[in-house]
């Protein structure tokens, strides 16, 4: 009698573990997929921002702004180098 109880409990436990494993796998798969999407999104955003920075720092644009603001290259003796 005792043995058959143990067998039933083991079978139920086995089924439970199997279902838990399946459930966890699916849950994690969702999580991974979502994280992957998020990673892609952040990566794209990062690329986009990097490109924007490069575009803002384009030499032609900077040169134009410098001209508009009447900037000029300072003399060597007016620069103080700090170590």
């Amino acid at each position: 009698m005792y043995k058959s109880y143990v067998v039933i409990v083991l079978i139920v436990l086995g089924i439970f573990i199997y279902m838990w494993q399946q459930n966890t796998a699916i849950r994690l798969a969702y999580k991974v997929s979502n994280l992957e999407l998020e990673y892609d999104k952040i990566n794209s955003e990062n690329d986009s921002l990097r490109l924007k920075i490069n575009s803002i720092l384009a030499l032609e644009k900077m040169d134009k702004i410098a001209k508009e603001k009447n900037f000029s290259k300072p003399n060597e003796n007016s620069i103080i180098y700090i170590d």
Partner: protein
Amino acid sequence: MTRKSVENISRKLVLIVTVILLFFFLFLKLIYVQIFLHSRINNIVKKMIIRNNIAVPKRGDILDFNGKILASSIKKYTIFLDSKLIDDFNEVKNVLLNNGIKIKERSLNELEKTSYYPIAFNVDACIVDGVKSRRLKGIGFESKYKRFYPEGRFLAHVLGITDSDGNGIEGIEKTCNECLSGYSVMIKTRRDGRGHIIYDRFIDKTKICGQNVKLNIDRNIQFIAEKELRKAFYKYKAKRAVCIIQNPKTGAVLAMVSLPDFDPSDKIKDIKVLRNSAISDIYEPGSTFKIVAIAAALEQNKVKLTENFYLENGRYKIAGHIIKDDHKIEGYASLKKIIERSSNIGIIKITKKLGSENFYEYIRKFGFYSLTGIDLPGEAKGILMDVDKWNLLSLPTISFGQGIGVTALQVISAFSAIANNGILMKPFLIYSIGNTKTSEKSSKNVLNPIEVRRVVSVKTAQMIRKLLKDTVDFGTGKSAKIANYTVGGKTGTAQKVDPSTKNYSVKHYVASFCGMIPAMCPEVVILIIIDEPYSNYYAYSVASPVFANIAKKTVRYLNIKEDDIE
């Protein structure tokens, strides 16, 4: 047993049997569905939930030598409508409008005819997120990588362009298309009832995306060259203009400008602007070519530096043609003087001593009439008649750069060979290929400089450099001189052939200057070509000042040690 109780039992029995039969039929149906219909249903479900998506890799970036982005791809979206799925069209319209997307009235009529009606292109991810968050039916999104060139028309001819599918069709985009493109991968995805997607396997996007290409081009030097050349290009209303800056020791191209240029991000209306004049256009080099004859004659010991030549008082008759000198020298002149004053007659006399066979051999040795092998598509070989077919005028005219077609890159490579103690290096633009971080300088995939051949000895190269220095100090190249540095170089004012008369034009010229700094131990070689300058055509007043302006800023930027401090 009473009759009533018998009836009760039989009713119960009927009920039990009915229930058992019902379950039995259900069980049979279950067996039928699970076993016999299994594969059919499985296929239907698979079709509903499994999708095969192609993961399109991001195209690699093109970077300058310091890791600044010159070309990059970012994800952009196309928003489309599926009229069959739309519940409330007005709501869709309002949501799109709130996100800055307006549906044209004309579109509304055509919308009902199709399930795919694109309404906005190149949309940013943040706008797509805004629309997606409203969870409206009938709005679809399609992502695609789009190529961007953050600096506009900067370095356009070198970078090239891509087609609508993202394949490189010009410039580095074409040369490195394979490594820039990356690898497309098929990914299986599963979709649940709520529309959530689960990927079958994890794809590391960094492994499938294209490799970055790092160029030898320095953004700052390129900017200096572009700015100064553009100024001259507009000032002289030139047909085209070219500037190349090269490191003579390695052959690395530090800057390459061809004007007119284009903005790779814009739609190209005239395909002619795509032509990179620096490597694809052939021109007659004029006097810059004289170094070839002199180097060959000195190398072959046919002439000496101290030797004097009679210059026919500026008019020399050969094969029924009269050759004139622009800068007339009376009586005799030394080789030094001939080069300084760029005497055509002097160079003819030197080349005559050298002979056609020898001259032809050295022209080829310097790399003319051969592809340099630069990593760009569309390079021209040049034009040179086989030595067996030369007539009486060929040797004299080719000696001063007429009757031969060369590319700008071939000319600068020849000058670089002189600057590099007689060794011709292969010009190259690509520094490395690989996915290194932009800040990272070292890379496993760095391309090494390639030595093509030794053209002349170290001694001859030194002699030529001295002659070029004297040309700038005392001769036609004076306007190329810059403060605190010695400069060696040669001017070239070449007549162009008029296509209508097929004779040399008296109106159209190519003004050029090729020089090296510092003169005796060069760190950079710079070539300037101004094609058909308006109002003034002499190289010393058109090309040499542009050289000086570029050289002045470049040496300061490269921190080249001053060698002419007085």
